[in-house]
């Protein structure tokens, strides 16, 4: 049985999360996956690396699920976050919500991912062509000390081409 709230180094399995929220009274299961995108604020990203305060992160996810259940009529909630390196295209976060009818599950799932990003203690470091940077909340991240500008990248390419 998959624990309903967990931080893991393993690849995320949506089927396991869906099983974790299975309930005969549910008429809807909504899932959300957050994946590593190959671009951020103009930077070519090749992987993200996540770090968590694991015990607290799991406790915060559980608290969020309890709050979601107070706000909407839900059956069950499961959330998982991967830590370590997550290459482009792979999922770093997965949420599943079951409810009697779909509207509640959609609304709760949306709220859960937004709140998770605000308060669950997990940090990501973006590895992009030309550097790496820790990303802060609701932003593309501050310019990294080692980040090169578009102009210097173009100049470097021109030099290589010569």
């Amino acid at each position, binding site marked *: 049985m998959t624990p309903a709230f967990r931080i893991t180094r393993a690849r995320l399995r949506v089927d396991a999360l869906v099983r974790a929220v299975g309930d005969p009274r549910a008429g809807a299961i909504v899932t959300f996956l*957050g994946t590593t995108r190959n671009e951020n604020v103009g930077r070519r990203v090749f992987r993200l690396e*996540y*770090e968590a*305060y694991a*015990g*607290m992160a799991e*406790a915060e996810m559980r608290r969020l699920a309890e709050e979601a259940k107070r706000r909407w009529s839900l059956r069950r909630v499961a959330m998982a976050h991967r830590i370590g390196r997550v290459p482009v295209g792979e999922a770093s976060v997965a949420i599943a919500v079951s409810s009697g009818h779909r509207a509640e599950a959609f609304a709760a799932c949306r709220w859960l991912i937004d709140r998770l*990003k*605000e*308060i*669950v*203690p*997990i*940090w*990501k*470091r973006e590895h992009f062509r030309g550097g790496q940077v*820790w*990303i*802060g*909340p*609701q*932003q593309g991240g501050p310019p990294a000390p080692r980040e090169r500008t578009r102009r210097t990248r173009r100049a470097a390419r021109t030099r290589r081409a010569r």
Partner: protein
Amino acid sequence: MRVHLRFFAVLREQAGARAERTVPAGTTVGALWRELVAERPALGAVKVRFAVNQTYVEPGHRLADGDEVAVFPPVSGGR
């Protein structure tokens, strides 16, 4: 009294993942942080939040012996 410190992300890179510290009884988490920043001014460049025993607290929270004090940069975000 003795408290256990934990740092994450960019703060971990600057201060190490864990530390132990002896502080006077009644010390607040904010006062402890100001002391740490005074010792390592680079830590002061980051906006931080605090958790004690895995629960968010405000800087005025008073520490107890054996507490685990975690200091975080803002969490990861994304739209």
